[in-house]
């Protein structure tokens, strides 16, 4: 069975934010209120001449043990067999418990007002109901044999997408080698987004 995962190489992310733009257009996110399914943090680390600029992309980690799914009272948050965590807009009542539970700050509100605004902004809007939205790993694109929009558009090839259960997959190899590591693994969420660190290489 496929187990989807993403590896993000912080060494090659140039902070162009093309992933954010591609995701926003693909998934019609409420960018007018600065809400994104994926976001690239721009951070300076260090002081004076020793300063490093780090671009840190983040998104839903599609955890194997997702706390957002556990706390969801309606069952709107659910998980596919391939590991992708999705939200059913029809079932979501927007209590925001998922946002409270998520350690990766991956949930955001889409309100009725956003849907109205979205119709003007995007034209043919795909959603009818409000919900606590999140990244889907572009599940609709995967069904068509395409990569997630953020992966396909990444100019530095910082984002890699693959199947953890395929030992020949480059993503699975990176994860198995220990080079790519998950965030906040001590929380027991078993995330499926992995990062290759940059600070050691930069000295």
């Amino acid at each position, binding site marked *: 069975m496929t187990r989807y995962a993403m590896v993000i190489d912080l060494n090659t992310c140039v902070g162009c934010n093309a992933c954010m733009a591609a995701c926003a257009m693909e998934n019609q996110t409420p960018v007018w209120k600065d809400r994104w399914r994926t976001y690239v943090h721009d951070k300076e680390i260090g002081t004076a001449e020793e300063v490093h600029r780090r671009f840190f992309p*983040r998104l839903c980690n599609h955890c194997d043990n997702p706390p957002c799914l556990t*706390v969801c009272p*309606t069952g709107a948050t659910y998980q596919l067999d391939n590991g992708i965590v999705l939200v059913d807009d029809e079932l979501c009542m927007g209590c925001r418990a998922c946002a*409270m539970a998520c350690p990766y700050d991956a949930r955001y509100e889409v309100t009725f007002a956003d849907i109205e605004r979205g119709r003007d902004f995007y034209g043919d809007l795909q959603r009818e109901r409000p*919900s606590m939205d999140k990244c889907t790993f572009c599940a609709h694109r995967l069904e068509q044999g395409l990569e997630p929009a953020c992966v396909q558009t990444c100019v530095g090839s910082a984002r890699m997408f693959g199947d953890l259960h395929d030992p020949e997959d480059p993503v699975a190899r990176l994860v198995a080698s220990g080079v790519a590591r998950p965030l906040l693994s001590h929380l027991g969420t078993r995330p499926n987004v992995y990062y290759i*660190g940059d600070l050691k290489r930069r000295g």
Partner: protein
Amino acid sequence: MDVTMTYATQDYWTWWIAVYLYLGGLGAATLTVTFLTDLYLKRHPCLVMWGAISGVVMLGLGSAMLFLHLLDHVAVFSVINPLVLFRKPDAWIAWGTQFIIWMMWWGVLYALPYMARSEAFLRLPLVGALLRMRWIAALARCCERYHKVVGWLATVNGIGTAVYTGLLLQSFPAVALWHNPGVPLLFTVSAFSTAMAYLLLVLHVVVRREEDHGLRVFYERLDLMLIAAELVILFSFFHYMRAGSESLYRSFELLWNDWGWLVGFIGFGLLVPFALELKGVLRGWGSRMPIVAASVLVLVGGYLLRHYFLAAGFYAHPW
């Protein structure tokens, strides 16, 4: 991987969820204490009616706060349906919603026989007509016959609701202040302490009967013990937070340097009422005002606890 951490509080659940947690715990504990008093201490129709009505109103108001806060009010029906417990037994909001709904039903049913005999209720325009209906009268007789069963069903749901308010916060693993077994314990003790305070107010201000003196003293003693227990739990929290993770230590810095928490909640919400009630239990008071004041302070403190707890939860973001 080396990460640089950012620590942040949240603005998803603010004061209105604090009101929901507060009124949920207070309302449920009020109903529970009232019914257990009526069942095992002293038959007290007046207290039952006051406890039941105010408890149900509190639960209703608290639930309204959560409901108003929702993004899609229509989708709430899937949680109101009891079958949600089979679909989502791992979600505490599902349990809490069912506890609250059933608590309200059992609360009304337990008080129904008393209301059906109460002249005051029978005189009320709509309520009186309802209570005189044949099927309501039959239902009241049935509830009277099985009042112990109804009382215990209410009690189980009441305790469930009080514990749930803490379990809900405990289910968020990202925040060290919330994700520990002390939270349900603290919230449950606080819920029952505020319920004692509320019932003391009722017995001192509304139902002022000489024959209830023993009951008032009993409630004061219980509240005293509950406040003491709350102080012990908070003392444990103080030490747990002081030497915990960075997220926890940020919460520690925020809470234990805040005058609203220290003076408002710990001082006026716990220590002052404790002193007033201790004096009342040991030597008595010449007037009812000190206990009334202590009760009001405990009630305000109960809200402050939840407000500050929600506000002080720190997330550790690895970016």
